[in-house]
């Protein structure tokens, strides 16, 4: 009798302890599972940006945007937000490695990245298949949000290059008045996509594409390529490639007599001080398309002064604001979908987070009014064309 009593007592105690631990037992009913954040644990988000190599300024700039966004946002439902930075290497391999590393940590709620579209293609698949969510601040390749190839967990706050390629074509055709243009890409989804959109838009406007060439991204001797392009007799050359190849093409083009007086133009992939330094005086007078950063809002002013104070530099590239918006969107969505336990435990449903983000509509960010469509394009795209004058980018159009 005594033993039975003791037994019952123990069971009761045990049950009490259990129920106390569970609070009012949060249940995960999410189709893709949940992230459970214990009371004093931080909420972890990851970034996958290019933070080493010739294109590091592109990624570092975005990463600074992410860090500032986390600072500005503060705690989410009483939890600190922690960033786990990864490197996308601006390549398919880098995108794959960083994505694999991220999805192997079940505590990561969402990803800001990648920097480069080439990395974004494999990364978006891995991240989506694992049920995670990613928002890219600077992928611009049309392929990533194409209905045929879009991955379920992928969004972006950067413009789609359908807009950028068209803007450059319009500038060349309408403002510069050229009728014969050439385009060069390096086989990466970003550069090939952008060059193709430029080609299509320019042809549509009535111009002629006299050469559509490609070069390996790690090429050194680009003189044969430019001789081929020059033989086709273009008045305008658009080469939306990255810093290393962009610098080489710019410098070599100035050495080729047949290209005298031909307009040179590149895109946001080279819009960084590194490129200006690498290309030096050869870059003078060339045109660069990229996001229009003439935002006039209070948040951006505050953002810029924090950026300069914290990192001691002018912005390194052009996607910091997009990274800021992407991060804020993510944190806001987490805050809205998280279920809160009595003791402060958070349960964040992955499908719920996805639905919330794709349902974003009319959100006022730094970069404009963001509305996400079903294929993940959230940007309010504004493109500017800059000219390199006295070793700096100066926006001249529109």
């Amino acid at each position, binding site marked *: 009798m005594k033993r039975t009593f003791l037994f019952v007592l123990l069971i009761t105690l045990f049950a009490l302890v259990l129920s106390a631990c569970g609070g009012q037992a949060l249940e995960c009913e999410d189709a893709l599972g949940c992230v459970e954040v214990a009371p004093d644990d931080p909420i972890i988000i990851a970034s996958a940006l290019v933070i*080493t190599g*010739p294109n*590091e300024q592109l990624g570092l700039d975005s990463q600074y945007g992410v860090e500032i966004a986390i600072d500005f946002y503060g705690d989410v439902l009483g939890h600190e937000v922690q960033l786990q930075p990864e490197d996308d290497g601006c390549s398919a391999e880098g995108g794959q490695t960083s994505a694999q590393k991220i999805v192997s940590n079940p505590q990561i709620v969402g990803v800001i990245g990648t920097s480069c579209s080439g990395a974004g293609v494999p990364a978006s698949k891995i991240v989506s298949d694992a049920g995670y969510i990613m928002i890219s601040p600077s992928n611009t390749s049309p392929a990533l949000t194409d209905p045929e190839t879009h991955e379920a967990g992928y969004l972006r706050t950067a413009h789609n290059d359908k807009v950028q390629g068209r803007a450059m074509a319009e500038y060349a055709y309408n403002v510069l008045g050229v009728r014969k243009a050439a385009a060069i890409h390096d086989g990466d989804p970003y550069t090939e996509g952008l060059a193709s959109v430029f080609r299509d838009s320019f042809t549509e406007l009535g111009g002629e594409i006299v050469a559509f060439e*490609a070069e390996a991204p790690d*090429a050194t*001797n680009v*003189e*044969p390529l430019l001789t081929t392009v020059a033989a086709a007799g273009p008045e305008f050359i658009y080469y939306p490639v990255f810093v290393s190849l962009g610098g*080489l093409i710019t410098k070599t083009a100035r050495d080729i007599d047949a290209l005298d007086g031909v307009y040179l133009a590149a895109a946001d992939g080279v819009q960084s001080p590194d490129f200006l330094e690498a290309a030096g005086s050869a870059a003078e007078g060339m045109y660069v398309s990229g996001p229009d950063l003439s935002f006039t809002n209070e948040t951006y002013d505050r953002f810029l002064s924090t950026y300069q104070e914290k990192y001691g530099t002018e912005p390194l590239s052009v996607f910091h604001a997009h990274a800021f918006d992407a991060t804020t969107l993510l944190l806001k969505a987490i805050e809205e979908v998280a279920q809160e336990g009595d003791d402060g435990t958070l349960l964040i449903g992955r499908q719920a987070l996805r639905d919330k983000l794709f349902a974003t509509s009319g959100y006022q960010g730094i970069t404009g009014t963001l509305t996400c469509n079903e294929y993940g394009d959230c940007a309010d795209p504004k493109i500017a064309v800059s000219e390199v004058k006295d070793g700096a980018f100066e926006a001249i159009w529109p």
Partner: protein
Amino acid sequence: MSQRFKDIDYIDLLLWLFRAVIIIIVIWGTVAKIFLGRGNAYTADDWIDFFVSGLSQGSLYALIALGYTLVYGVLFMINFAHGEFFMSGTMTATVFVALPLSASGFLDEHPIIGMLAIMLTAMLISIGVAVLTERVAYRPLRRAPRLVPLITAIGASFFWQYFFRGLYGSSLVPFPELAVLQGKYNLFGIEILKTRAVVVVASVVMLVGLYFFVMRTKTGKAIRAVAEDKDVAALMGIDVDRTIAITFATGAAMAGAAGVLYGLVFRQVHFFMGFVPGIKAFTAAVLGGIGSIPGAALGGLFLGVIEAVGPPLFLEGLGIPGGHQLKDVIAFTMLVLVLIFRPQGIIGERLAEKKA
């Protein structure tokens, strides 16, 4: 009749077919280009541009390939860290000599002294890195199976890459432009970029110099003796370890000089710059016949020219769009062809049993 068919080795037949197909494709493309005028219409000047830029690129490959060939000749080992010897000297010379000299204006006032200083620094640093690598990573493995130093070389290559990345950062460093080398020379009515001409001339001078060093000096003789047979060479009173170190140093000096010429032409350097030229130079060394100095020179020049001329010539003739990004395909197809049909390389000697 049936006896004859039995004698045919089907693998051989397949390889012959493969060879025939490649040759037909190349000839077809060339004919289509030249006689049917497919693709862009090039003037004679354009073809000269293709050729000269290929030649200068090829002479860089040749200089780097020498390092592979020398080391292979002596140790029968592929030194995959050689691309890093090339990078280390150039990066250091650019950051510590070229940029300060250019900023102070010295480089434009005394271009020859300036260039010599840059080149000397690059060569010395490359030699230092090479000798250190040899001492620390290769010498202790002298008697190990041949696969072991190969893997060590790959490790050394990564080590130096990331070591210099740590030192100088991972962004592009611009190499200063020399005012005297801007513009073109006019040779018999052919316009050639001055930098290109300088690269070709400097490379030829160094190649000839190296050939005489190996063939006509006592040290050169020692190198050849060690290449022939290390044990017998030691018995003849040659310090084998020292000779091997000298071989590494010679190859690295060529690579350091090549690096500065690379900087002159492409005007930007970074920590990863050794990788692709290293692989290409290795290809060139095998093409020409690894172990042979004239072979490396010839292989390098050949590779550089075919990379520049191939895409506009037969790829465009075949109607392949964006041919220039496929120049690596041409380079490595050449390598595969040579490995299949002439494993000793274009002018390489057939290796004796022991060496092979």
